[in-house]
């Protein structure tokens, strides 16, 4: 073992330039510090609390929620829509920006894919939490009815999960190979993991060609699938007769909102890693500026769809639509509605229009506000509608029309949110937040230098 290490060091010094070594040291995933451990502990506590309350729900049924026969979808469903929305960010940053040749995207691709994978996993879990009979989940496979938008969602979301995971994994293979070859002082499990996951990558021309081709193919097909997951999710609402949902515009409305909150997530992630990993060189002011401009554009598109979805029904004030809209504009939901629309969309748009508003700290704060606003926006899309059934509400208990999530419901929902952060945190522990090979290439370094003389090395490792 020691022999191997000295040998490595030799190769290291001979083949690797100073610039490359400093880049590598910068980008390797890092063990958790005290703060990181506290963070994980906190997330774990909340996730386990959520799990605990879910077990209670399994035992007692959905009666532990605030749901009722009239308001039968609540924060589980709106939380599901939120997670699906966030998962679109992977395709936005990695695929759309890749295909449009935006070079500056390189440091953002990995983290946006990590966010996407974590969000789509949690979306799947959250919708199972909403089911009255999760024990019969497999009926979706054994007795599917293709008419149902839920089946479309099952198909398209599982496809997106696979594609997103591949889209995260494929560009990681060379990075895994680098870490397999160079990282020696790390725990055994991690070495083994890198060895398995790097699937014998030797950085040959043939391998590079296949990999870049595969990544490109996924970059193309993931875009319609990404539009698909959120459009189909919007159809869960649009296929009903309910006020606020019964609209042909919800597909693009949902997709626009998803890209907006996704871009905000990336800005937040950039800011956080800039701070904790000191990634000033990678997440520069330029990145914050560009991402903020992108966020601004996406927010303006979302504003445009909001005008369509609220103004046009409000212009007509058709029967049940008018009750629903009055509730949002000036009724019970008005405080939340205007806070979300003004605080979570209009004010961020105005701030992002100014150069100073796109500086890292401000962009971070604005993005955090957008994310929180986006969560409550999904609540506003899902819940108030159900307070306005199409038939008169004689004898209907008030609690059926004025849903308030119960304590356990909140705890489970918070648990899913912390679980998604936990997935991100754990992935970041083993995966470089910024792609190593692409970054090296962008900086004009010889990427071949990143790889040690691989054949011999793998043989040595195998022995």
């Amino acid at each position: 073992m020691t022999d191997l290490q000295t040998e490595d060091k030799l190769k290291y010094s001979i083949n690797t330039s100073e610039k490359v070594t400093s880049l590598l040291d910068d980008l390797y995933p890092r063990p958790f510090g005290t703060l990181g451990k506290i963070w994980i502990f906190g997330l774990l506590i909340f996730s386990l609390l959520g799990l605990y309350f879910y077990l209670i729900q399994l035992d007692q049924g959905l009666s532990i929620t605030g749901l009722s026969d009239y308001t039968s979808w609540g924060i589980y469903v709106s939380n599901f829509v939120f997670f699906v929305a966030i998962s679109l960010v992977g395709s936005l940053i990695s695929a759309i920006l890749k295909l449009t040749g935006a070079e500056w995207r390189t440091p953002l691709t990995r983290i946006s894919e990590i966010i996407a994978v974590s969000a789509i996993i949690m979306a799947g879990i959250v919708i199972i939490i909403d089911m009255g009979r999760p024990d019969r989940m497999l009926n979706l496979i054994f007795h599917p009815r293709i008419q149902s938008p839920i089946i479309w969602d099952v198909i398209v979301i599982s496809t997106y999960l696979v594609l997103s995971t591949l889209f995260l994994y494929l560009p990681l293979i060379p990075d895994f190979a680098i870490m397999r070859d160079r990282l020696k002082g790390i725990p055994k499990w991690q070495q083994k993991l890198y060895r398995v996951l790097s699937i014998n990558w030797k950085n040959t021309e043939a391998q590079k060609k296949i990999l870049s081709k595969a990544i490109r193919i996924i970059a193309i097909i993931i875009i319609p699938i990404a539009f698909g997951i959120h459009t189909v999710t919007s159809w869960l609402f649009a296929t009903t007769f309910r006020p606020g949902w019964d609209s042909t515009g919800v597909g693009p409305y949902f997709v626009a909102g998803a890209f907006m909150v996704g871009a905000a997530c990336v800005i937040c992630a950039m800011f956080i890693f800039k701070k904790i990993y000191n990634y000033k060189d990678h997440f520069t002011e330029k990145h914050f500026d560009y991402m903020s401009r992108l966020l601004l554009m996406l927010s303006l598109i979302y504003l445009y769809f909001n005008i369509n979805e609220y103004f046009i029904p409000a212009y007509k004030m058709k029967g049940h639509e008018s009750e629903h809209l009055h509730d949002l504009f000036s009724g019970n939901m008005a405080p939340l509605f205007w806070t979300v629309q003004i605080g979570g969309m209009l004010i961020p748009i105005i701030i992002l229009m100014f150069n100073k508003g796109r500086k890292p700290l401000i962009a971070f704060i604005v993005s955090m506000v957008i994310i929180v606003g986006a969560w409550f926006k999904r609540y506003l899309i899902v819940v108030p509608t159900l307070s306005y059934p199409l038939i008169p509400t004689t004898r209907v208990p008030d609690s059926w029309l004025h849903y308030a999530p119960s304590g356990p419901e909140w705890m489970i929902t918070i648990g899913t949110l912390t679980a998604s952060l936990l997935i991100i945190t754990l992935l970041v522990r083993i995966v470089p937040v910024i792609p190593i090979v692409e970054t090296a290439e962008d900086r004009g370094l010889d990427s071949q230098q990143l790889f040690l003389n691989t054949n011999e090395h793998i043989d040595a490792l195998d022995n």
Partner: protein
Amino acid sequence: MSNNNEASLENNRRSFLKKSFFAGLAFPSPTENDNIFHRDDVLESGNKVKLLSPDGEIIEIDEAYLKPIPNTYTAKVREGIPGRKFVMVIDLAQCKNLRKCHDACEKMHHLTPEKDWLKIVKQQDNDLASPYWQPTTCFHCDNPPCVKVCPVDATFKRTDGIVLIDNDRCIGCRFCMVACPYSARSFDWSEPVLPLEVLNMPYDPETSCPPKKGTVSKCDFCPDMVRKGEMPHCVSACPNGVFYFGDENEDAVSNGTETVKLSDLLKERFGYRYMEDLGTKPRVYYLPPVQRAFPFEDDEYSRNK
């Protein structure tokens, strides 16, 4: 030829079921946990029964060995009663909000109070029009939004027009509940609290009993009563003859006291369907609340609505 074969098979099956019923065995079917098949304990009765074997041969077996087929409902219950097309007409001019229909429904289906399969809502078409009471059931739509959105075929439309729910299949996603514009569906949010004899009933979608935790239920047009040649509970419970029930194929409906021609009734009394513009094609018609014999009276729940 093949029809004849099927008919004779059907006859055999029927006589088999009938005989097994009279043989004193539990019928229609045991519950999952309740194993009543004790082959070893069988005491031969000496009475032989003729049966058709899977190979098409007539065989004889001692009556005591007959046992019911578990879950007999699944296959047949999805098809519906052949040749029938059930329809309901609700005469709004006669409804006084006595709620006898609701109470009978609740009692006979063993519903807990919060489950309103049959609602009587206060309707008022505009501010100047007189209010009236409108009983609403499941409308068993011919273009049912609930059936369309069900991902697992748990709720289904039968040839006799009835929309039912298979609570052994339902995954509890509640998509049907938000898809139904008439809010006809209820959900068992927790383990149903009911007398043991109800909970131990063999489950059948035609009786919607016993209810199951985490699944959806609704008005089922009482197909179990219809099979017995009787009226749904709401129809027979109403003292004012508000509900007419019958068969569209026979063009006849009855409210228990009088039987009338469906097409004439709808034509002469301007029968309409609730929310016709949605295109759901309900199988429940309403006769407008005109020429009422009594004034509208608010009850304690409707006054402020």
